[in-house]
């Protein structure tokens, strides 16, 4: 009797829950709940025509209104144009930067990398204002300098307009984000591949073009997709520089719908769904391109070497070029920002006693400040650690090629990147309130941390995926055959090998957690207000100087964390 039942188990019983399936489906459920549900909620809401609190009435009106609203389509066109025009040179530059930093003997590479890290986290709003002070046709400092040159008549720079926006982006979003993501990947590239190309007779350019770039294509592609979508959503610069010149972008349209009274979240979601479409298209090509992605498994234990390309006399030229770029696009406006935080009125040098310590003093003595600082540090640390643990495991699953739902998992974890921040925030708010955890999550620092971890999912997952793809499976499999359980392998082999990437990604999450405004804006409470919300309140009420001071302080915190984090990361990696 017993033996019969044992041999004729029902089919579902025979599908024994193997750990990897369990993990896969746990992630699937988690992502579906955490990323899919908010989206579903927003989309459903966008078809709901009745006022909040009233019985739902469904129809297409919101969508029709959103897309027939004057200027929507031209704004969409402008957004695409801006995003593409910005992306191409920025990608070329950042790949070049990353390669110079990671793969060559260019002096000062570490320093330039550190600058990129700091630059990425300088808040963009005061930075754009700094550019206005530099470039304004009427009072811009650089125009003043230019006018004194012979043969120059009138202002030669004008930040208000298409090219002004493109230029200022090189300084705010710019290449920093991309370099940060690409450098660790370049570091992991097996030197033998490049060396083989050299031996085969390729010069540096050919090698880069034919070997390095194709091998790193998945990550470069991922970074491009991330940046492109980020570019579509970019907002502050366009608002400050585009509006006076009559340039409207898509994100401004979404913002408008969100600010309307009564609020038009339905229309905003309808417009935001275009990003989903863009993402779907990009992901399709991404997957197509990466099919059979095992060919990108290039770094195994054997080729693990960090020999660097010798640039010869060009190394100093390269260094000087990088430094010049950094000086012009970051140091210049940053100096203005620092000065601005000490000015009674940002950018006004001609008033009586223009300099003051008051903004710093006011900020530091604001009783809310210390609480917000503490909240921010807790939130950012939790976000960094949580993000690293969660998404390294997710990336592992995606790379392992044993999952049966990889495209679904991957698509889900991209969602937070395409939803405009405030919509994501609304979705997450709804999610929190709908779960039994709400008393723990809603309004607490942990809730904000969870939301930020969700928001970090695409960038973090992609970074880990790239790292894992290049590590190769042998290093892990040999540990398994040696008798190590998966978790032991993960801790003792994978994480240490990924430590540089983990440190970088953790730090990045830490930084974005400190600076993110749109994610916590609907989730914070009086007790859990982070620094970024304080910054928002300062700029909301026009206290620009205090906002500049706070922005700088946040940047300093990130810079300190960066030094600590890098040291820790390298220690974990057990190298250098």
């Amino acid at each position, binding site marked *: 009797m017993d033996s019969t039942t044992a*041999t004729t*188990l029902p089919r579902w*019983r*025979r*599908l*024994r829950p*193997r*750990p990897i399936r369990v993990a896969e489906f746990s992630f699937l459920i988690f992502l579906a709940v955490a990323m899919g549900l908010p989206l579903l909620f927003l989309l459903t809401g966008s078809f709901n025509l009745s006022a909040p609190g009233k019985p739902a009435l469904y129809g297409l009106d919101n969508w029709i209104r959103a897309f027939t609203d004057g200027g929507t389509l031209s704004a969409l066109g402008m957004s695409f144009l801006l995003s593409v025009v910005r992306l191409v040179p920025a990608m070329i530059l950042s790949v070049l930067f990353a390669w110079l930093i990671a793969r060559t003997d260019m002096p000062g590479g570490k320093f330039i990398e550190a600058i990129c890290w700091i630059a990425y986290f300088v808040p963009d709003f005061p930075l754009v204002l700094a550019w206005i002070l530099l470039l304004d046709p009427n009072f811009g400092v650089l125009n003043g300098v230019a006018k004194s040159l012979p043969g120059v008549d009138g202002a030669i720079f004008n930040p208000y307009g298409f090219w002004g926006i493109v230029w200022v982006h090189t300084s705010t979003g710019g290449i920093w984000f991309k370099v940060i993501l690409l450098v660790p990947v370049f570091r992991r590239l097996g030197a033998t591949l490049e060396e083989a190309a050299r031996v085969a007779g390729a010069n540096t350019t050919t090698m880069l073009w034919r070997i390095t770039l194709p091998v790193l294509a998945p990550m470069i592609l991922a970074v491009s997709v991330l940046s492109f979508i980020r570019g579509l959503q970019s907002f502050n610069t366009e608002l400050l520089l585009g509006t006076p010149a009559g340039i409207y972008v898509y994100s401004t349209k979404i913002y408008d719908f969100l600010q309307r009274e009564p609020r038009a979240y339905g229309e905003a979601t309808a417009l935001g769904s275009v990003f989903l479409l863009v993402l779907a298209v990009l992901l399709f090509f991404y997957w197509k391109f990466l099919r059979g992605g095992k060919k990108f498994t290039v770094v*195994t*234990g*054997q080729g*693990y*070497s960090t020999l660097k390309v010798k640039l010869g006399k060009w190394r100093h030229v390269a260094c000087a070029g990088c430094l010049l770029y950094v000086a012009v696009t970051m140091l210049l406006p940053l100096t203005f920002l620092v000065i601005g935080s000490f000015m009674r009125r940002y950018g006004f040098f001609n008033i009586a006693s223009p300099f003051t310590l008051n903004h710093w003093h006011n900020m530091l003595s604001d009783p809310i400040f210390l609480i917000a600082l503490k909240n921010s540090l807790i939130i950012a640390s939790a976000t960094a650690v949580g993000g690293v643990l969660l998404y390294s495991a997710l990336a592992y699953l995606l790379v392992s090629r044993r999952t049966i739902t990889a495209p679904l998992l991957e698509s889900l974890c991209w969602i937070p990147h395409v939803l405009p921040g405030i919509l994501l925030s609304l979705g997450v708010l709804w999610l929190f309130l709908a779960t039994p955890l709400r008393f723990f999550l809603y309004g607490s620092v942990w809730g904000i941390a969870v939301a930020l971890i969700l928001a970090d999912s695409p960038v973090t997952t992609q970074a880990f995926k790239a790292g894992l793809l290049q590590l*190769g499976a*042998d*290093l892990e*499999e*040999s*540990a*398994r*055959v*040696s*008798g*190590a*359980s*998966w978790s*032991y*392998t993960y801790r*003792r*082999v994978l994480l*240490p*090998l990924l*430590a540089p990437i983990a440190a970088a990604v953790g730090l990045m999450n830490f930084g974005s957690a400190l600076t993110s405004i749109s994610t916590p804006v609907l989730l914070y409470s009086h007790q859990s207000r982070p620094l970024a919300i304080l910054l928002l309140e300062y700029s909301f009420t026009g206290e620009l100087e205090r906002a500049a001071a706070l922005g700088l302080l946040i940047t300093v915190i990130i810079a300190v964390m960066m030094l600590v984090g890098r040291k820790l990361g390298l220690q974990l*990696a*057990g*190298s250098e």
Partner: protein
Amino acid sequence: MSAPVLEFRQVVKRFGSVNAVDGVSFTIERGEIFTLLGPSGCGKTTTLRLVAGLEEPDGGEIFIAGKCVAAPARGLYLAPEKRHLGMVFQSYAIWPHLTVFENVAFPLRVRREANPMVRQRVDQALEVVGLGGFGERGATQLSGGQQQRVALARALVYQPEILLLDEPLSNLDAKLREQMRVEIRALQKKLGLTVLYVTHDQAEAMTLSDRIAVVNRGRFVQVGTPEEVYERPLTEFAASFLGRMVSFTGIVRRNSAAYVIEFADASRCALGDHVPNSCTDGGAVQLQTRPEDIAILADGALESHQLSAAVEQVAYLGESFEYHVCAHGVSFVLTAAKKHRYQAGDKIRLALDPARLKIGPV
């Protein structure tokens, strides 16, 4: 009777629509070196990974030391870390963030061995592979051969049930490869190891193995001792993959009691009476032989099974000559002693060894 160390029963592994391992059954006895030999993509590495637990079979059953470790029909699957195996990867998979000592110690640490024990066993293992005193080196500071030894030491350090070797020598230079081959064999004898060895190099397979499985398209074409497999290949694939094979085709002619084969150019070669019944008079026939069983006939010598041929190219190997020969439209390479020397373009006669000739209908 003790159970075989490893047993496959009708194991199937699919990748998409391809059967990478297609209903394979075999056993390995304790203390033998069993080699999977085949061209790349034939499923030999997949078979190895199925043993290791790095892949899960889609059908059949796998037993290690009598214990079932994978049986998808019963929902059974044992994780790799629970199988007590040692494995050397083709890439060696030396962990770059650990020292040589810690690399080798890893399997012991996983098993929570006490520190003095770890030290003793690791030192011993390093000694065995000839890396005594290298313990504190960083793993990335080693040469390829040294990394290979570290990988071996790591696989041996806790006396696994089976040692799995995945083309471990393919990344070494020829001389080192030969040396390691001998060392592995010696080590295996000394430690009484059971080894499952994967290679595409027939010389390696021949010299190392107790038994060889010739693998093609996910199936075991033939299993046997090196001699059996070489001397009595069951299929053309087995024959051509292990060493070279020359084959001629022609028409069978019955000539009173004896048979001859008539080639396209009307020349003939006697076949004696070794012709199987399946070859009918006037039917197409194929002669197969290994080149080393073909001798170049000295001038004037006569042989019943002889062919005329022409020398196309000559290579001097030091210890012998290598002749590229063409006979009846078939080109092949013969190695010959140095006492006779032929030039390119010379007409020669070749003698076939009737005992080692395989004759069959086309």
